[in-house]
């Protein structure tokens, strides 16, 4: 009862308390390692990335071209039907200019990152990736872009086989 309660529990510790060692604590660093199964759809997707191609699955029932590819359609709840290649061009749906890395550490040069919907997949379907070949002032939602692939011999079957997406040139496809 906020109006009737006078003591709110909780003893605050400051960052200084911590740094000066006034706080009893114990430290533990987990050492867990994982080997994820890529699965049926993603294994083929990663294999095709090494060939410089993006692949999707089609569902005959809802007539969608599903990207990222999946072995079952979550909408129709049935197995998907066939593989189909889509294009490596698309449209920036949204983006961020990030000054944070994975551990929330500050980085001086921002990362341009966002979602690109890909040509040939059903509307709005795409992937998260980096953007390059443009400045933070040039990037905008709706910009047409194209994948920049790593040299073939450096591809390892990872989304990082694409370095990022760059602006699509005039008349280019």
């Amino acid at each position, binding site marked *: 009862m906020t*109006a009737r309660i006078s003591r709110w529990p909780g003893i605050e510790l400051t960052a200084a308390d911590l740094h000066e060692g006034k706080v009893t604590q114990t430290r533990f660093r987990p050492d867990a390692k994982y080997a994820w199964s890529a699965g049926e759809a993603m294994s083929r997707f990663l294999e095709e990335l090494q060939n410089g191609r993006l692949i999707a699955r089609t569902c005959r029932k809802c007539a969608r071209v599903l990207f990222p590819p999946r072995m079952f359609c979550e909408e129709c709840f049935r197995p998907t039907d066939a593989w189909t290649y889509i294009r490596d061009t698309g449209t920036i749906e949204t*983006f961020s200019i990030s*000054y*944070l890395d*994975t551990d929330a550490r500050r980085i001086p040069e921002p990362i341009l990152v966002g*979602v690109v919907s890909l040509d040939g997949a059903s509307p*709005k379907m795409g992937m998260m990736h980096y953007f390059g070949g443009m400045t933070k002032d040039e990037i905008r939602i709706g910009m047409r872009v194209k994948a920049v692939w790593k040299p073939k011999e450096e591809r390892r079957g990872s*989304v990082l086989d694409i370095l990022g997406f760059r602006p699509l040139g005039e008349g280019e496809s």
Partner: protein
Amino acid sequence: MRKVGVIGAGMTLFRRRLQETGKEMCFEATKMALDSAGLTRADVDTVVCGTAPDAFDGVAMKGEYLLDGCGGYRKPYTRVFTGGGTGVFSTIAGWWHVASGLADVALVVNEEKMSSCQPHPQSVFAHIWDPILDRPLKPNLVWIFAMEMNRYMTVYGVKKEDIARVAVKNKRNAVGHPCAQLADPNITVDDVLNSEVMAWPVQRLDISPPSDGASAVVLASEDFIRKRRIKDRAWISGVGWCIDSTMWTDRDLVFPEYVARAAKMAYKMAKIDEPRRQIDFAEPYDPFDYKELHHLEGLLLADKGEAPVLTREGVTERDGKMPVCPSGGLLGVGNPIAATMGMKIGELFWQLTGQAGKRQIPREVHTGVSQAWGDLMQYGSVVVMRA
């Protein structure tokens, strides 16, 4: 289904770091909630614990770890977790125990101790992303918000200063909250706009901070409330929850469809067909300022793209036509994920029973809605409560 009322609530201070362990925090919040309802542990039939990933505390099986502090031992006890949505969802889980007739009294205890994870819980958030598609890109959780916020701003042409008004309102509202971590009576829109850019368009003061904290509520059946002659109660009149596909790069982030579906489910149960007219105030989930706007639209309390206009016009101020986050929200009180129940369910209870003190909405309120959000821009949970 039986009628269920909230009859007590409690919470600890929300701070970046508390000395208390998770169990101790749970005990404090639970004891306060039971005391406020005039009940003891012996009156409790079942306990629901809501808490986010084990990795924050660094203790696996966190539900079991917190058990004693939640007053749950030797009782039917369940831990629930729906990401950030837990802040409202755990009450729904408590509700169904009582509504079904399985229990007369259900205790709901939510806890988060985010300070255990060093140097920052951000590294744990990284584990929510898909290991094959997303994680090689080394994503940061703030990216989710930045991408969603940018889409929202761009599609509707929303100005950043109109979004910043939400942070200003909530941090000012929090001045009246005894547990608040980031209350600021003097904050201005310029302070928000001039704060450090984290991941544009998200700046430091657009974000709620990580916190330690616990909260608890006591739910009881109508029969029990009558028999015990409990006066301070607020009825749960509607509940709803919904989750969208994990394929988050396949949907337009501009509108939270899953929140709208959860809201419609709750409104139907509460017999609300005109939410803007029938709901007096709202406590939507506001981990970031634009999320309050996004969620007001998902809750059908504003047309698409209209929430920033309502905010600019003062409609959502505590003395406005539709007060939003009168508690101070996550932006002002703090964001110990599941424990934000203290501002979502707890605040509805306190407002509807006239116990909110300095935060009390200055007119009579009969119906409030609270909502929480979580996972990969996927999950919505909604509770409607009436005086």
